[in-house]
């Protein structure tokens, strides 16, 4: 296996964009190529496109060659689209990494795009209801908010986690996204604001939920020994882990303990040869406030059931035990499914380069992880990066 470096990347601003899916692709593609000197689209031999539901959101299949065409890329090695719902972008990164690491590809782009705002939002909600097993769970109206609402309810019931503690996750992540020019929500909120926001699916309220978002992003990967041709400040892929248990609600390992996240983390830390104490930045998948609380626990920063206390004590802020989501998270930045993991990765690169605003800069950060869950949190995927 060759060591792989990420040498640059670019993204669109995320949010409710007055732009088509194709516009988003071009905007992010241009930003990506402009960020890497000495690289032309013709040098890219492989392109992996993370896209969760273009067939439903924009009624378009066979999207990888479309992205290639718009970006001026003529792949000669690997061209593919990846779908793993909320983790579609991370799978694009994993595949691009595997292609370069194996020697199959010498220059690969991992790209991600989602256009989620539709003229009729009930149609967008419909798309989100075929993510869980549609015939047995989706049929009951189980899209993401009701599913994670029940997860939150059980976590509150079993461990005494409070609404206030959940709200504090939203406050933290919006605090950081207020300093992120790419974020969908560049605005601070108080605990009171969160608790006064619309009830979506109790106990979850609007500000407990990541947004519906339009956005696109891409990063460029090359073998580590070639990295200095493109940049003085590459970022290295150190390891990776992914685990999945069950799919239908009945077959999950547990509603209140994310066992597959523990397994994915073990594998990621083993392959990267790091321990928890080595991690300076954790970009975690805060699709809902309860998710981040359960991730503190499963990753081992606090005991099972103590995630609420962990945020209450300010431990996941910069300067605390671990800086969690200094980008602003999905809660603050939005969640354009296929693009989300690429946006996390790009922000980590910018953290390592010292290119983010001071208020959310993790000074001297050397090692970071990016995590995504997907579906009913049965799948967890982690990448480990270092300066």
């Amino acid at each position, binding site marked *: 296996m060759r060591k792989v470096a990420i040498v640059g990347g670019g993204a669109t601003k995320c949010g409710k964009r007055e732009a088509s899916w194709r516009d988003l692709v071009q905007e992010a593609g241009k930003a990506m190529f402009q960020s890497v000197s000495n690289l032309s689209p013709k040098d890219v031999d492989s392109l992996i496109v993370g896209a969760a539901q273009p067939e439903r959101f924009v009624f378009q299949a066979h999207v990888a060659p479309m992205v290639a065409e718009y970006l001026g890329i003529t792949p000669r090695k690997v061209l593919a689209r990846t779908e793993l719902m909320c983790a579609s972008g991370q799978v694009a990164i994993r595949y691009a990494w595997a292609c370069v690491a194996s020697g199959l590809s010498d220059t690969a782009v991992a790209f991600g795009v989602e256009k989620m705002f539709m003229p009729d939002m009930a149609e967008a*909600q419909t798309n989100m209801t075929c993510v869980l097993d549609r015939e*047995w769970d989706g049929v009951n109206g*189980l*899209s993401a*908010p009701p599913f994670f609402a*029940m997860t939150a*309810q059980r976590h509150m019931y079993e461990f005494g986690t409070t609404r206030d503690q959940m709200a504090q996750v939203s406050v933290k992540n919006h605090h950081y996204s207020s300093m992120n020019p790419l974020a969908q929500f560049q605005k601070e909120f108080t605990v009171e604001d969160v608790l006064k926001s619309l009830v979506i699916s109790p106990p979850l309220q609007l500000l407990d939920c990541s947004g519906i978002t339009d956005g696109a992003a891409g990063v460029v990967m090359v073998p580590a020994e070639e990295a200095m041709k493109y940049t003085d400040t590459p970022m290295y892929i150190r390891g990776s882990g992914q685990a999945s248990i069950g799919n239908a609600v009945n077959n999950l390992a547990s*509603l209140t303990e994310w066992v597959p996240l523990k397994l994915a983390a073990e594998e990621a830390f083993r392959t990267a040869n790091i321990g928890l104490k080595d991690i300076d930045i954790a970009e975690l998948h805060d699709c809902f406030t309860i998710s981040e609380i359960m991730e503190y626990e499963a990753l081992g920063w606090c005991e099972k059931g103590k995630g609420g206390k962990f945020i209450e004590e300010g431990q996941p802020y910069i300067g605390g035990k671990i800086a969690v989501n200094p980008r602003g998270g999905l809660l603050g930045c939005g969640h354009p499914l296929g693009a989300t993991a690429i946006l996390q990765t790009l922000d980590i690169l910018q953290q390592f380069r010292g290119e983010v605003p001071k208020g959310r800069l993790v000074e001297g950060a050397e090692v970071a992880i990016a995590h995504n869950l997907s579906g009913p949190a049965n799948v967890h995927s982690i990448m480990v990066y270092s300066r």
Partner: protein
Amino acid sequence: MSNAEFDKVKRPESIKLPLMLDFYPLEDTKTTGISQFFKNLKEGRLTTTKCKKCSRLLWPPRIVCSNCLSNELEWVDLGADGELYAFTEMRIGAPLGFVEDVPFCIGIVKIGDLLISSRIDNTKYDQLKIGDKLQLKIVELEDGRVFFRFAK
């Protein structure tokens, strides 16, 4: 103005909700190997498949045992009683087809060792609590297909 021709074309004002977008499974023997599940439901019986070889109780029902790959599965009754394990209410963000039902309760129902998701009818969110006893309810679609829910 150029000499381009202008014309108007029609698009349908509305279309019938496509079968795959109404969320309910297709049930007859031509479309699924677990048609028996729905036949049983029509008789008021909630059933699932159990492997005759390794004894694993499988939910959702299926045609091959995911534990030992045996095809020798039998239909077993799950009874009509359940206990509420978790619940919420769909207030905002319902998909097409369910918009008119809002608000409606959704739960996870414990039946023996199984945790089965279900709509929870005849109640409101504020009237439910974890551990509530629930009864099986069968709903029939206009085209004759059936599905199950639980009710308080």
